[in-house]
């Protein structure tokens, strides 16, 4: 009897912990977002975050998109040739990249690079009292550290996804024309005739949400880290894992929602 009660108590404690964490995340997100709109603003911090999340993630996102587009064209050709539907490759590549692969892959890549860096930086600042030092120097840490990163995430990821979309389509184009013998003009005509504004817009909306999630999880985990180097390491891991899972889960929810709305 006691063992059953202990088991139930353990489940209850875990559920309460999870709810507490969810509540803390919600409050943290609301506070961070509210500081985006309330002065003082820190344009230097924002610019630095934009460079970190956007510019320095460009190579990894570009390479991922390029090779994904190339593989997509190759795989589509393998499958579609069985049904004599090779002409649909351009459509498959452009729709897959703009609606789905561009935002999701860019999100996962940026999460691994910039999200981890954010958590490590804020975590180190927390355990070395730098966050407390900000407070003693008349600076609200949420405003100085978190708000600029959240805004940079929301803005940088859609910009990265525009690049990813272009390079993904280009990857498909290169394989289709140079390796599979497609006519370049015909491929491009097919690509643009299949592409609609809504496809790109839905991808950009998704990527803005993913950018927010990456910055939020990086900041949240870093800001709450404790216990020295081990704590910072755990915060970094948690930031990447939680952001990646949330990106994949939210991708489904947003896809469902955007199909109805757009």
């Amino acid at each position, binding site marked *: 009897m006691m063992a059953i009660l202990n088991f139930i108590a353990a489940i209850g404690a875990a559920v309460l912990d999870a709810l507490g964490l969810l509540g803390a995340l919600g409050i943290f997100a609301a506070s961070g977002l509210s500081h985006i709109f309330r002065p003082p603003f820190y344009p230097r911090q924002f610019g*630095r975050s934009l460079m970190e999340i956007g510019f320095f993630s460009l190579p990894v996102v570009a390479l991922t998109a390029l090779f994904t587009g190339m593989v997509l064209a190759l795989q589509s050709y393998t499958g579609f040739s069985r049904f004599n539907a090779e002409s649909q490759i351009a459509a498959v590549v452009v729709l897959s990249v703009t609606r789905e692969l561009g935002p999701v892959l860019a999100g996962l890549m940026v999460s691994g690079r910039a999200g981890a860096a954010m958590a490590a930086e804020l975590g180190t600042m927390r355990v*070395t009292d730098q966050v*407390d*030092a*900000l*407070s*003693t*120097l*008349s*600076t609200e840490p949420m405003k100085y550290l978190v708000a600029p990163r959240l805004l940079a995430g929301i803005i940088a990821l859609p910009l990265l996804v525009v690049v990813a979309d272009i390079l993904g389509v280009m990857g498909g184009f290169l394989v289709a024309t140079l390796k599979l013998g497609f006519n370049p003009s015909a491929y491009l005509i097919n690509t643009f005739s299949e592409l609609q504004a809504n496809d790109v817009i839905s991808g950009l909306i998704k990527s803005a949400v993913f950018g927010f999630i990456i910055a939020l999880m990086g900041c949240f985990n870093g800001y709450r880290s404790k216990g020295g180097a081990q704590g910072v390491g755990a915060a970094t891991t948690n930031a990447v894992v939680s952001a990646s899972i949330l990106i994949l889960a939210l991708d489904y929810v947003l896809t469902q929602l955007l199909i109805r709305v757009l």
Partner: protein
Amino acid sequence: MTDFKIKIRGLKKSFGDKRVLDGVDLDVATGTAMVVIGGSGTGKSVLIKSILGLVTPDAGSIEIDGEDVLRVSRARAHELRSQIGMLFQNGALFDSLPVWENVAFGLLAERKIKRSRAKDKAVEVLSQVGLGPDVAVLSPAELSGGMQKRVALARAIAAEPAIMFFDEPTTGLDPIMGAVIDGLIVDCVKRLGSTSIAITHDMASAMRIGDQAAMLYQGKICWTGPAPELLNADNPVVNQFTHGRREGPIQMALRK
């Protein structure tokens, strides 16, 4: 009548089941350098973090200039606390910024100075802690422990605060550098006419920088008196602590 800059009454703070502060009463007269001593984990840092607003106490009052910072509006509490300069134990310098931006950070945040003037001002403050202008452009990671402490002190005094806190100012420094930092602290506090609280378990440092001393033990202030009397205090807890004796009430308490 004594004019108290800081007045603490019945301050309590627990973390989970562990009660760290259990009714701390402490008065710091204006212009006095107070040293709070106590063993590791006795709540010295929690005490000053409570005054700074970095930790929210469970009960009690903290008056600065006669106003309870725990009960006034958030804006007023911020105003009262903005007159505090803080030297953190490990310096807590912002490693993403060069030394001069670290020193001028508070002035820029408070908009007391224009960015174009900030570097000159930082160099001026750095000279007060014995550092040359060449240090201003370095990053904190390029500095030795003693230099980092001096930069942190420069950052704490840059806004010429009326109140200064020093958290273990000599930790991690060799005895000579410790004495140098203590000397700088005394000079800065006297020159600015500030009221200060330093927490330490370094007796030599406590005697050098303190006018008054208090000992924190089992969550309460168990003794207060002039700092020079620390070594001759008739309180057995203080006596054991200051002389570093293994036998005595502190050890007995640990054995329980």
